[in-house]
């Protein structure tokens, strides 16, 4: 029983964490919370199923095609829903523009793909549905790959440092000659890849279903708020904890009460630490 709760809790938590990181990567580059993050996760599952199960591509090629498409959707988000509203960030118009794009993505998927969940193909054929099944550890593996990849990117590469620079202070970064707009687009493409990977890795668990987008938008935002805006480590830790807590609550109180339990904890944590558990309080110079 404990093994089952831990396996599914950590798997779902890893997906929430990755969607949280997707939010963060977009936020760092533009100070915009883009509500297309969950839809990127949904697209990862749907496109993966389409490329591999319907079009018959080999798994690796299917993964590459899925990530490329999700990166393109990330760039599209930047061009269509973010760039036009950047000049008036304080009006929070991005909430409307990104939500509108997210809804469009969801509706197009429902029309062109299916309104019913579709199966996602088995990738390795390991496990028989129990706690050691690939559907449970693949999201964790994807999470580990993203953590290591982002660490290497941000700490060891010039482009990664440039990302950090615009995240830290984009005026100063621009003054130093960094191509802020291109870097922002690259960040959105990177976010698309991370979101797509989350959906692809969890395809067997969540199925290729158009309605997963809004669910992931919702639960993926919780680790961002709990971990602190822009804090990837916080998002990963909070996401995993959220998944395990949610599954434990499912077992103990069940059904709709599990969601109530999750959001009760969420509100309590934010009351105690409004900046998130791992975020630092914002300081305003006077």
């Amino acid at each position, binding site marked *: *029983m404990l093994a*089952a*709760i831990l396996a*599914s809790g950590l*798997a*779902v938590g890893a997906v929430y964490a990755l969607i949280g990181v997707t939010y963060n990567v977009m936020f760092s580059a533009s100070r915009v919370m883009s509500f297309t993050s969950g839809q990127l996760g949904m697209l990862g599952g749907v496109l993966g199923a389409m490329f591999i199960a319907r079009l018959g591509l080999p798994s690796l090629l299917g993964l590459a095609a899925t990530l490329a498409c999700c990166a393109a959707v990330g760039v599209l988000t930047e061009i269509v829903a973010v760039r036009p509203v950047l000049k008036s960030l304080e009006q929070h118009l991005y909430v409307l523009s990104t939500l509108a794009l997210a809804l469009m993505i969801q509706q197009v998927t*429902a029309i062109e793909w299916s*309104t*019913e*969940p*579709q*199966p996602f193909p088995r990738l390795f054929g390991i496990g*028989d*549905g*129990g706690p050691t099944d690939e559907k449970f550890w693949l999201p964790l593996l994807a999470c580990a790959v993203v953590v290591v990849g982002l660490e290497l990117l941000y700490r060891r590469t010039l482009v990664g440092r440039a990302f950090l620079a615009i995240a830290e202070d984009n005026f100063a970064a621009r003054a130093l000659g960094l191509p802020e707009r291109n870097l922002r687009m690259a960040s959105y493409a990177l976010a698309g890849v991370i979101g797509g990977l989350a959906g692809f890795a*969890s395809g067997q*668990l*969540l*199925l290729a*279903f158009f*309605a*997963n987008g809004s*669910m992931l938008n919702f639960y993926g935002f919780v680790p961002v708020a709990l971990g602190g805006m822009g804090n990837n480590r916080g998002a990963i830790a909070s996401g995993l904890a959220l998944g395990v807590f949610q*599954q*434990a609550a*499912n*077992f103990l109180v*069940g*059904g*709709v009460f599990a*969601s109530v339990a999750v959001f009760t904890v969420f509100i309590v944590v934010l009351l105690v630490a409004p900046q998130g558990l791992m975020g630092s309080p914002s300081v305003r110079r006077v």
Partner: protein
Amino acid sequence: MTITRRGFALGSAGALVAAQGLARPALAQGEPIRIGWLAALTGPSSAPGIGFDRGVHYAVEAINAAGGVKGRKIELVVRDTQGDPTKAVNAVQDMISRARVHAVWGPTNSGESLATTPIMARAKMPNVHPCFVDSLIDPAKYPNAFRMAPSNSQIDNAVSDYCIKNLGLKSLAVVGDTTGYGTTTVTSSTAAIAKRGGNVVYKGTIDPTQPDVTPDMLRMRNAGAQAIVVWSVSPGLCARLMNTRATMGWDVPLVGHPTMGSGEVGKLIAAPKNWEKTYILGFRNCSFGADGKLPAHVQSFVDGTKGKIQLDDTILWWVLDGVDAINLIARAVQEAGGTDPAKMVAYWDTVTKYPGLYATYSWSKTEHNGLPDSDIVMSEANSQRLGAYKLAPGYT
């Protein structure tokens, strides 16, 4: 004789009245019988509408090809409601006031019907529909509305009876999805089980997008459930319940909503054996017996319409119910001697054991639920062929 202006005016008026009196029966005899068909033919809940539509068109063509009803051809007035109650209300108002239909078949889902039934009652429009919600049928409030499908209470009773009487299992878990339908049906099903002496050891709802239902099923097993009654229209949730049951090695029957027998569930189960021991609501006339055949009159219809009605991508009862609806409206016109709404309703009030394809219908002045309980059975979920299912164990 001098013709005065007054005499001429009176004579003309008299001639006009006489001419109208003569012309009216001739016009009514040649006038087509206009049947309004409120169908959800597009949109997310269109699958039943498309199935019903095939039966409706087949029946209309068959009657017209045979010369119509007393020489009057049937004309369908179809409006696609897209499953939207607002569109259904507009469509029914248009049918009543502009298209001037003589009877209406539909809508085919309860949400729409809840909105249109009072409108049709005010217009005294003869109406047959296949919607399940109990409150849609009330001969005092809606004397013009007749049901050609089971009510929710009949469905609850059939499922409870099957678990308790046929399978001999009394400790039951009742689960539904978190939609309005799932939540309300869990409550009504629990009451039906308790009424029959069953013991609901677990009752709950599950979000259709919940990725893993292991915690919920562990709770059901720990509560001592011998069977799980499932009320969900989500193929994803149904398939997850079946897959998790197999992973847990829990040999417990799943009984309930027909979604568990849909082709979408078949795509989502991890192995064909996960689909076994799952029983869904079905209908005796649309079920294969032990000999692999449907009841004789239905089998002969299916054989006779091969190539004319596509059955492999729909559910047989939807098609047959569509055929029966048109036949019952045509029969009402025939028995009433025309399209007078009061006379058509009066005929339906006397229908006793009408041998339809989908069911044997009976209505009376005080009972407008047409299906007898004996026509409602359970079927094996994994046995779909030509839109019909095999009878579940325990029936002869």
